[in-house]
Every structure is written in structure tokens, then in C-alpha cells.
């Protein structure tokens, strides 16, 4: 990574870390993991399943909210507050700014996920008293959640590069919801006929396939994960992220900062 991208990423990370809203959201996520302990205790024989399901869902949902909440303002807020003027009047290329912002937010989410994961493992240990070998699969689910965050970050940045924070939030959250049902959309496309089939198939492959990245239920049920799925999901998330980031760069490179 070149030095300027690193410095922009570090400043983005520092901005996020100094934002009180971030701590409120992490607090909520940890609270939900704690609540999973209570629910687990009243769920006879399925404590483990409930704690993993609720805990990882909390990590995923709150992470997505943080990614969207911070990501939508990364570019538009800098333009609106004119803080960008003193950055781009230095030897900083516009693409370096976008990529630096992305890495800063992605770094923030990785660190958040680390702390929230400690909460989930803590809750699980409290309920089952001892970790078993299949619990390592939680790490795979967490890895997929991080991949999901990378895609969301890049989408939030893409929308932030040309629209207002409110519209960016609407676009990013809508894509997250649609992408979470991408498998169902593909199933629908398979059953449809004529133009509907073409439109549904196009939409199904265009939206990010978040359902493929969601293995929380499978992990909770201790189903094995094959390495091919991990590789496929990694390549898919990196490809989608690169495309969305390239789009953000292309738009931002041509934008007049009035």
C-alpha cells in the first residue's frame, strides 16, 4: 500500500474510533450476545445453537449498520464540510483518497468484529463451559461476515461518491436486503418465463449475493464447511468489492467539488 493511502486509511480509522455512535452500536451488539446467554439458558439442549445464531447475527447486523452508517458519509461529508479541499490540494490522487477511505473503514470493521467475536465466544463459553472442535467453524462464519462488510463498505462508498448520505443509506440498505435474498431471487428467476425470467436473472446476478456469505445457521448446526466454498466466497467478495470500488473511483475522478 502506498504511504498516502495508508495515512488516509489511518485517519479514517481514527475518525471512526473517535465517533461515539460506534461505541453505542458495539455496546448494543455485545448486549445482544449477552441476551443470547439468557435465551440459551431457557432453551433446553439447544443453548449452543441459540447462542451462536443470535451472537453471530448480532455481529453481522450491527456491523452492516456501522458499515452503512460510516460508509455513506465517507466522501459526501468530506465534500459537504470542505475538508476534502485541503487533502486534494496536496499530492494526493483522487483514487488514492477513495481506496484509503475504503481501507480505513474496512480496518475499523475488522477491529469491531474482533471485539464482538470475543463477546460471542465469551457467551458461548458461559453456556457450554467448554469449546469443542466444531466451534472453530464460528471463525469461518466470522470470516464470511468480514467479506460481507467489505462488499457493503465498497457499495456505501460507491453511493457516497455521487449522492447524498440519506440516499446512499437507502441504496446501500436496499441492496443489503435484496442481496440477503439473492438465492430466492435466483430461484424465482429459474421458475419465471419470458422477459420476467431475463430481468429476474439479470437482477439476481447483479445484486451482491449475501445469502452465499451467510453460513451462520450451518455453523450453528455444526455442518462442515468445505474449502471450495471458502475460496469461492473469497473470490466473489473480492471481485464484487473491486468492481464497486472501481465504480466509485470512476465517478469521483470526474466529479466537480463545488
Amino acid at each position: 500500500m502506498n504511504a498516502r493511502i495508508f495515512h488516509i486509511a489511518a485517519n479514517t480509522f481514527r475518525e471512526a474510533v473517535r465517533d461515539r455512535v460506534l461505541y453505542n452500536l458495539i455496546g448494543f451488539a455485545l448486549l445482544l450476545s449477552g441476551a443470547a446467554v439468557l435465551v440459551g439458558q431457557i432453551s433446553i439442549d439447544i443453548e449452543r445453537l441459540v447462542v451462536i445464531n443470535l451472537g453471530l447475527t448480532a455481529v453481522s447486523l450491527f456491523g452492516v449498520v456501522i458499515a452503512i452508517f460510516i460508509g455513506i458519509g465517507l466522501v459526501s461529508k468530506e465534500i459537504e464540510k470542505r475538508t476534502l479541499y485541503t487533502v486534494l490540494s496536496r499530492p494526493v490522487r483522487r483514487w488514492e483518497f477513495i481506496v484509503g477511505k475504503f481501507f480505513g473503514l474496512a480496518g475499523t470493521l475488522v477491529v469491531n468484529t474482533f471485539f464482538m467475536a470475543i463477546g460471542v465466544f465469551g457467551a458461548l463459553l458461559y453456556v457450554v463451559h467448554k469449546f469443542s472442535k466444531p466451534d472453530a467453524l464460528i471463525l469461518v462464519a466470522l470470516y464470511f461476515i468480514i467479506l460481507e462488510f467489505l462488499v457493503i463498505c465498497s457499495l456505501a462508498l460507491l453511493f457516497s461518491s455521487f449522492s447524498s448520505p440519506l440516499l446512499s443509506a437507502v441504496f446501500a440498505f436496499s441492496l443489503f436486503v435484496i442481496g440477503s435474498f439473492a438465492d430466492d431471487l435466483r430461484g424465482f428467476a429459474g421458475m419465471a418465463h419470458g422477459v420476467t425470467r431475463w430481468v429476474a436473472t439479470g437482477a439476481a446476478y447483479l445484486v451482491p449475493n449475501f445469502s452465499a456469505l451467510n453460513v451462520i445457521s450451518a455453523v450453528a448446526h455444526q455442518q462442515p464447511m468445505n474449502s471450495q466454498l471458502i475460496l469461492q466466497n473469497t473470490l466473489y467478495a473480492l471481485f464484487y468489492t473491486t468492481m464497486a470500488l472501481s465504480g466509485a473511483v470512476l465517478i469521483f475522478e470526474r466529479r466537480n467539488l463545488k
Partner: protein
Amino acid sequence: MAAIEILGLEKTYMVGFWRKRPKRALQPLQLTVEEGEIFGFLGPNGAGKTTTLKILMGLVFPTAGTARILGHDWTDPEVKAQIGFLPEQPYFYDYLTAHELLDYYGQLSGVPGKDRKRRIEEVLQRVGLTDIKGVQLRKFSKGMLQRAGIAQAILHNPKLVFFDEPMSGLDPLGRREVRDLMEQLKQEGKTVFFSTHILSDAEALCDRVAIIHKGELRGVGAVADLTATVQGKVEVVWQGTQIPVSMKALGAECHVTGDTVRAVIPENQQDAAIDALRRECIRLIALTPLRTSLEAYFVEKLQLSPTATEKTLGTAV
């Protein structure tokens, strides 16, 4: 070598929601700023000063034209390591302290780590921001933010500094300090290009000025030349509050201020005025020819029609 060469830069925005129509913010601009001078870019609000600066900083793309900064194409990112920029009403990352902000900008400008700490202390001292360690910028007053803005513009020791309304938000003492700083920058061999609509600042500081109005260049020249025109009148100042009758007879417009009287009379009456004061045994303090002020020149250029301006520009540029 010219520090800045603006070669026909122009900007047209498309305005309106449904039926977009062009709005020209900057007409083709030709301007040269020499190295080592303080150059004032004058114009009323909305004249096109900030648009020009934004184009030069690469924040806005011109519709046509080009420019050269320090001998290089103005879009070359590496040129930016040699220039400093203070935007109008600057706003910075308010979660940072001034030291953190300058450290960040120093990193982006490629100032080596070992020099950065020393430079930060130097520039903060220079702009009068002391005892602010650990204070986040959100707690800074408008004047303090302006000083932080000036500090970031000169942090990396640039050869050319662009200031957009640098006196904005500063108290009289602060304005004086910024004027002194700009003169120091000039003495260090740097070029200063600043936009303002405060004419007294421009008159006191600038070697040359350009006047822009409605996106069109209305005049360029050395301040001394622009204000050299004698109006054919002289100002006579004498001690006391007495106005001799013979002075009134000369058609003098007299104003009493404290224990001095100022009178403006036609130039050809100045000997008669001195004789009148001598007869009454009144002490003469000063006799000076009235020159066109920069303000008068500015107003004159703003009132000119575009066609008339085109005629005068040929001699002004």
C-alpha cells in the same frame, strides 16, 4: 519563470433541474503571476475568484483552457507538493487536535517524519497558535481555525501559496499578523496569490492585482501604477480649526477633524492656498496631490461594460 500562467481557463456550469441551461462562472482567463510577488485577486462576492482557485487546485475541472504552475502542467500531482492552499472559510477534521491535523497533512505532503514535528511547532508558533496542545479543533474559534488553515498551507514550506480570503474571521490584530506573515513569505522568496474583496489589504500588501467581475477579468496591473493617476486636485492640511475666508473663495471643500483642517482644492490654486494660510499665520502640515485609490479603480472597473473592458484589457495585461 512565471509562478502561475493561466491560459484561457474557463468554466461553465449546467444549472436547473429539468431544463438544464449553461451558466458561465469563468470567462476565458489569461493571467500571469511572476515568482516572488504578492498577487491580489480582487472581486466582489460571486465574481469567480474561488472558482479560479478551485480549478488551479484540481477541485473543479475547467470547461476549456489550461494552466502552468511553477513551470509544470497544473494537473501534475507532484506540483502540489510545492504549493500550499488555504480555502475560504476552512473547516477541518474537528475530532483532531491542531498537532494531529498538521501531522496528517505533513504526511500527505511527504514531509519526512523527523522534520515534521519541528515544522509543526514552527508554523503553529508563526501563526500565533500556542497553548493548544490536546485541544480538538471543534473547540477552536473561527479565528483560530483560520490560523490553523494558514499553518497547514505553509507547513511543507511551499514555493507558492494560494490564500482564499485569508483575513476572513480574523480580528484587526489577527489581520495585521497575517499581513506581516505574507510579507515574510515574500521576503523568503515565495509567491503569494490571494483572493480578497478587502481592498485596503490588497493595497497595503500586493505588488500587482487583478480585478475580476462576473467571471470576467476587468484589469491587471501593479498597485503603484493603478493608483498613480493624479486627479488634478491637491489636499491641504493645516493646524487649528480656523478656515480662512480666502480659502473658501478658492472653492475648497473643508473638513475639520480635531485640531486639523483638511481641504481639497484644484491643483492650480495650491499657491494661492499657501499664501492664504501664510497671511493668517496658520501652520501648514501637508500638501499632497490626490491620487486615485485602489477602491476608485476597483469601482470603475466593476462599472465598465464588458465591451469597454475588452478595450482596456489590451493595455492592462
